[in-house]
């Protein structure tokens, strides 16, 4: 029993140490964002939270259109998320619950697209969007990502186990068409799965850097990540301000994550197990 107890204690010590390492960069971000730049440059460095946080945040707002970028990022993230949830769940519902000619072939094709790295077609994608006249517009951020293979694959696995066939048969007997069956039988049951996919998609779009860097060419219409990078590029010597910007860009997202963190993590792990 005591050996068991020591093992548990050691386990917790290991885990707590890991937690410290995990969370330290956030603490350090706050320390730097709340002190002045000369403080940061000094030796020994200040290790505690200072009193200049709001001053530094104010400087961020003076130098870049922070809320403009945030709004743009929010619209893009929400836009992609809503479209992905609809298109992916609809496709997943059809793949999981209906037999139709070519179904397995189409699904195999969908899985095959996993193999293609996004960067392979970076250049032609840019050229294509330029041809459409979408460069610099929100469409370039939203439309190409409006449906994705991962989401359909994941939702299909979820739908297979979660939606009882009897419910679909019953809806059919009631004379409901495919779309009605999706709305009345599929969607309500898929709701927990949609919550996961929604948070997952939102976070990914919000944090995306390479794609918006390439397609959002108008300096007045940058996503938060690109704006933050630019803040660093131009005012890189003002560390405390850059860190205040980083902090401001990170907080909303962590908020979104914490709301659904518990089930989100469980769902993600379950999804990986189905790979």
């Amino acid at each position, binding site marked *: 029993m005591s050996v068991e107890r020591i*093992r*548990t204690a050691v*386990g*917790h010590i290991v*885990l707590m140490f*890991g*937690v410290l390492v*995990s*969370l330290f*960069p956030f603490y*350090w971000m706050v320390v*730097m964002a709340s002190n002045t730049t000369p403080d940061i440059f000094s*030796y*020994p*460095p200040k290790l505690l939270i200072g009193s200049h946080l709001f001053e530094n945040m104010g400087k961020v707002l003076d130098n870049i259109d922070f809320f403009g970028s945030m709004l743009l990022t929010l619209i893009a993230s929400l836009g992609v998320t809503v479209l992905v949830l609809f*298109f992916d769940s*609809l*496709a997943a519902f*059809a793949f999981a*619950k*209906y037999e*139709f000619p070519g179904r397995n072939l189409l699904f195999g094709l969908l899985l095959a*697209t996993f*193999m293609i790295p996004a*960067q*392979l077609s*970076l*250049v*032609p994608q840019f*050229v294509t969007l330029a041809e459409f006249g979408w460069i610099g517009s929100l469409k370039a951020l939203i439309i*190409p990502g409006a449906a994705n293979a991962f989401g*359909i694959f994941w939702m299909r696995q979820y739908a*297979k*186990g979660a939606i009882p*066939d009897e419910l*679909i048969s019953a809806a059919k007997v009631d004379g409901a*068409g*495919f*779309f009605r069956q*999706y709305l009345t039988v599929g969607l309500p049951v898929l709701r927990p799965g949609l919550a996961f996919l929604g948070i997952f998609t939102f*976070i990914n779009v919000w*944090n995306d*850097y390479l794609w918006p860097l390439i397609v959002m060419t108008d300096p007045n219409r940058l996503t938060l*990540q690109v704006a*933050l*990078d630019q803040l*660093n*590029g131009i005012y*890189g010597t003002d560390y405390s301000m*850059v860190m205040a910007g*980083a902090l401001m*860009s*990170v907080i909303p997202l*962590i908020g979104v*994550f*914490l709301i659904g963190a518990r089930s989100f*993590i469980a769902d*993600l*792990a379950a999804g*990986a197990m189905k790979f």
Partner: protein
Amino acid sequence: MAVTSKTAPVVTTTTASTAEKPPNKYKQAFPQYAAVSPFFILFAIFGAFPVLFSIWISFHSWDGIGQMKWVGLEQYNYLLSDVTFWKTIGNTMIIWVLSTVPMLLLALVIANALHNATRLRTFYRIAYFIPNVTSVVAITLVFGSIFSNNFGLLNAFLRSIGVGEVQWLTSPWGIKIAIATIVTWRWVGYNAIIYLAGLQAISADVYEAAKVDGASPRQTFWRITVPMMRPVILFTAVTSTIGGLQIFTESRVLFGDTNNIGGPGDAGLTIVSYLYQSAFIKNQFGYGAAIGWALFILIVLFSIINWRLIGGNDDERLTRRAARRVERRIAAQNAKREAADVR
């Protein structure tokens, strides 16, 4: 989790619309085709077409605006003799090894500890997962300051304990270690959560049976835990290989310099950074497309190596996975029976 992953594939049996055969089965399935079509339409425009188009572009010399000039295989010829390109492959590989090896080992240790912990489970999971949902740009800025040569926290610490300072952000190895640290920090928790799910999927009966048979903890680990975790380890190995080969943001943001995105001596220039630099800074679209293909070939190559090493010899992934599931179930049943027999 184990239960769902095992039973999920079997549920396909009762599906709709098998009763009436004629009139036209394709016409009848119109709603289903419509339902799956958005993905395929979008993929055709923004996925398949660009992939084919990129082959075409890579055979040309093109700045993206002017006339395309056919150069045949010139870009690829140049690629093979381009010292910078090989350097980016080397950089990427080194960063990948420096990040993936500690990342997966630490993840395994943490997963094991999480598996045994009964208290604070939710807290741990969230704390370990937060790095993964944090923006790479923001966190790279933080790590950039920690690793900073002159006033960085790390050097201040090294100074205070009397060890010499390291020029992290100007020396070739320092740069790679800094980038690898960011990657590791972001992905350890993610992989630990996935390993944990894998550990939890192993039935307690199997361990019971091993105990009854007198297996040592080490034997249990190598003979039971590792083989049963194989699909999960494969998953993390494949995803971190693909992710590792595509590292970009960390090195791009770390130096904050548009003219020199790879840092001093290009020591942090990755394959994707080089693609970005060639196509979007130097406007060499043809060369950028060629680098994209090189990256694709590397990813396929490494995925195959991963499957061979961890997944066995069978190429057909789906059947193998099914087979493994059956194996697992049989093993579990056998173990249960054995355990019962002994009792």
